Each structure stands twice: as C-alpha cells, then as structure tokens.
C-alpha cells in the first residue's frame, strides 16, 4: 500500500535528473490518495506515476498528478536470452524472479523483439524457480542475445479516479496491456501545460471507460491516440462512456483500422470541432484522424556512404543530419522515460 503521500518533485538549485513520484514495478500494489506535483512550471523530467510490466494486480486510484512532464505512464518489460539450455530452455537478463509458489509465468505471452523469431508470439510453459530457466510451450530455435518482451494474459490493472492536470504527456499506456487493464473515470485536463500533443496514448490492450478528456485544443493535438500493438495483435480496445470536451481531434490513430476495431459507444463530444454532435446527427461513430507512426517498432539507424571524406575533428557539419533515417535523437532515460527535450542526436555512416 502506498497511500496518502504528498510528493513534491520540484527541482531546487541545480538541474535535476529524470525522476518519478511513484514507480510501481512490483505486483500486488495499491497506490491511492497520493499527490505528485512540481511547484511552478511543468518539469519535463518528472513522471508522476510509472507502472511497469510484468507487475500484476495493480490498483491505482484517487491520486492527483500535476505539472509533471509525464503524468501516468505504463511501460513494457523487455529482456534478452543470456544462455540457451536443453529442450528449448533459456536464461534471461532482466525479468523479476518468481517464487516456486507464484505464477511462475505459466501461460504468459512472450513476443520476440530480435533474432530469428522476431515478432513471433509464444506462450511460456513455466519458469523454474530453482534453475531460473524459462521454457516455452512450443520450443523454438533461439540464440543468446535474442530480445523479447513478456506480458500476462490478465494483468489486473485498475487505474481509476485519478486526476491528471497540467502535464505535457498526461497519460501514456505504453505496455502490452491485457483484457483486465482498465483506465476509468479519470479526469485528464491540459490545464496550462503547453505543447500537449496528446492527452492519452494507448499502445496495448486497455479499456477506457468514463474518462473526461478536456482542453486538448492546441493545433495538431489529439485527446486519444491509438498506436498499433507491438505484438502484432489486432487490438479490440474498449472506449466507452468517455467525455471529450474542447479537443481539436478527439481520436487519432497511428495505424489504419485501430479505431474501427475498438468497441465504442456512449462517448460524448462537446465543443470538438471535428466531431460536431447534435440531437439530429450524433457524432459517433466519428472518424479517427490517421497520422502515420513516426517510429518503427525497433530503433533502426541507416548508415550509408557519405558524400565526401570525414575529418575526425569533432566538427559534425559534414554529417547528414537532415535525413531522419540516418540521424536520431537521444531522448530517453536508460529506464525508458521519454525526455521531452532531447539531450542530443546521433548519426552513423
């Protein structure tokens, strides 16, 4: 239980590194009635509440998150194979160890992010708590270094009645989610934060029920952004009984068909120019604005020949910085928080 705390993450004096008010990475946690905020201007390096897969049974409610760069963030969990054993078993580098009496990852989903099985979705047979080896239901040819992510068939995440206000990226549900990952009855308002490109982004399987998304009214911004599933699944998200108020674009999809595949009814659109709603002509189903995803699922940098020779002198003018396939920003913390102001760029040739 994490309850009733006032967490002030205001930076005092020198610049402060990326930090989070609550970092929920373990299972079976209730976090409620906390206030996480920054005094003064929005701090792009602050995350209010971070939830990390593969935690299960998380209950997050009645928290207030204000003036943070990121409000509530859910993140996926990745690991890689460190040793391949007999019968398709393997050791890995990053997952939480499980007790013999626990779920031992039985029936969990595993999607390969690298190696010969990239994008293949598998089921974990079990985790041996004594040898720390994983075994898949269907053995595969895997190699040391193959990276993967896991997520449970049922995460049991309930996030409700949280107030998220004045944040640059209010809500980013970036994990794989599950049928029991629910975000409901949360007021999400832009407030006086600027450059709020989206209020809520979803990259996995979540249910959005009864939320109030308000004031996402800057040009090109969107209240709800749907991203394609990294595991390649056809997501059937539930978007029901939400109020979209004063939003330039209520819904935006980064792959075609995401909004059409969602289960949606009872949503209300007030003062949304692109979704005029009247008694005679109800706005639902509204069309979702399609904006192609910027990034590929895997970070990929192309390195071609340069137009001329390079002098290794620290001056970078001769590098092709304007080619987006060859130059990319450095804008994450090692643990995965997005830095809203990138700290640098890299380019390869």
């Amino acid at each position, binding site marked *: 239980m994490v309850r009733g705390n006032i967490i002030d993450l205001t930076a005092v004096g*020198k*610049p*402060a*590194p*990326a930090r989070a008010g609550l970092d929920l990475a373990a299972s079976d946690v209730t976090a409620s009635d906390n206030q996480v905020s920054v005094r003064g201007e929005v701090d792009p*390096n602050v995350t209010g509440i971070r939830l990390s897969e593969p935690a299960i049974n998380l209950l997050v409610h009645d928290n207030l998150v204000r003036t943070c760069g990121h409000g509530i963030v859910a993140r996926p*969990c*990745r*690991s*890689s194979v460190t040793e391949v054993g007999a019968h398709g078993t393997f050791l890995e*580098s*990053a997952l939480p160890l499980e007790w013999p009496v626990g779920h031992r990852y039985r029936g969990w989903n595993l999607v390969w992010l*690298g190696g010969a099985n990239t994008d293949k979705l598998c089921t974990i047979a079990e985790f041996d708590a004594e040898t720390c080896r994983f075994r898949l239901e269907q053995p595969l040819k895997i*190699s040391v*270094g*193959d*990276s993967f992510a896991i997520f449970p068939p049922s995460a049991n995440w309930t996030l409700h009645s949280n107030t998220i206000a004045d944040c640059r990226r209010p809500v980013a549900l970036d994990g794989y989610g599950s049928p029991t990952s629910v975000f409901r009855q949360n007021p999400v308002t832009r407030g006086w934060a600027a450059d709020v490109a989206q209020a809520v982004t979803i990259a996995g399987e979540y249910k959005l029920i009864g939320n109030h998304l308000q004031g996402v009214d800057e040009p090109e911004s969107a209240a709800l952004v749907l991203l394609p599933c990294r595991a390649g699944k056809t997501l059937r998200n539930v978007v029901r009984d939400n109020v979209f108020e004063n939003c330039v674009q209520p819904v935006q999809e980064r792959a075609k068909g995401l909004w059409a595949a969602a289960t949606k009814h009872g949503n209300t659109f007030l003062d949304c120019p692109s979704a005029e709603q009247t008694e005679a002509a109800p706005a639902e189903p509204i069309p979702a604005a399609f904006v192609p995803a910027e990034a590929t699922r*895997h*970070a*990929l*940098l*192309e*390195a*071609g*020949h340069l137009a001329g020779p*390079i002098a*290794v*002198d*620290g*001056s*970078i003018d001769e590098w092709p910085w304007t080619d987006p396939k060859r130059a*990319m920003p*450095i*804008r*994450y*913390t*090692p*643990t*995965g*928080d997005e*830095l809203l*102001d990138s*700290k*640098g760029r*890299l380019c*390869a040739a």
Partner: protein
Amino acid sequence: MSTPKDTPLKAGLDWSGDGVELSLRGVNTAEVTPIFVLWGTVDGTFQGSTAMGASAAQIARLQRSARYAARLGDAEWTCEWQLPFAALGMIAAPAKGLKLNVGLRTLADDSWAAWVPTGGRVCEVDLAGEVQLRN
C-alpha cells in the same frame, strides 16, 4: 549534445566526466563479436572497457585503431568516432549490421540519457538499436 546552462562541462575518463558511451557488437551469425564499450569525454580522450565481455587484447586493439574527437561550443558539444571493422574483430562490414546504443552522461544534472532505453544498462545492446549498413 546540449551543454548545460551555468555549469561548465568537465572532462574525465572512467565515466567520471561529461561524455558519451558507445556500445556495439556485430550481429552476423557466423561472426558474433563481444560487446565493445567505449567511453569518450569532452576533451577528446577516450577509452575502452572489458565490462561487457570483450577481452583486454580486443579492447587494446580497438583503442589503437579507433579515432575520437570532441569539440565544445556555446550551446552544444559534439564528438565523432571512427571505428575500423577490423578493430572490432570483423573481416568486413557485417551484412546484418550492428547492435548499438549510445549513452550521454551529463554531470550537471547527474543524469544519463540513451538513444534506446534498455531498462537498465545502456551497454545492453541486444536490447537497444540496430545500425544497418548501406552501400
């Protein structure tokens, strides 16, 4: 890389200053290399590390052949690396490219930033990004 306001950059080897960590490995099946970890700081000096499996001899070979330079500006500092494939233990450019990550250490706010977040150490390149080499 952006330069912190009001706090001068500080050079330092052994990850003690402002600088960049470059980690990479070749991913050809027949030519798996260890993960090479390099640290370059703002005064143009650099070093390699055996922390991710490269032997001392491999690191020494890379340090002899690699070139690194840094330049400080008012609002940003820049650096360049040049790494011969042979110094990375590869006969030629790996057809499948390289696994790579870049970490940026900033002393002013005691922070690390990464090209690709790995969930832990920046040098875990198998969880990071890829570089595809084009002709």
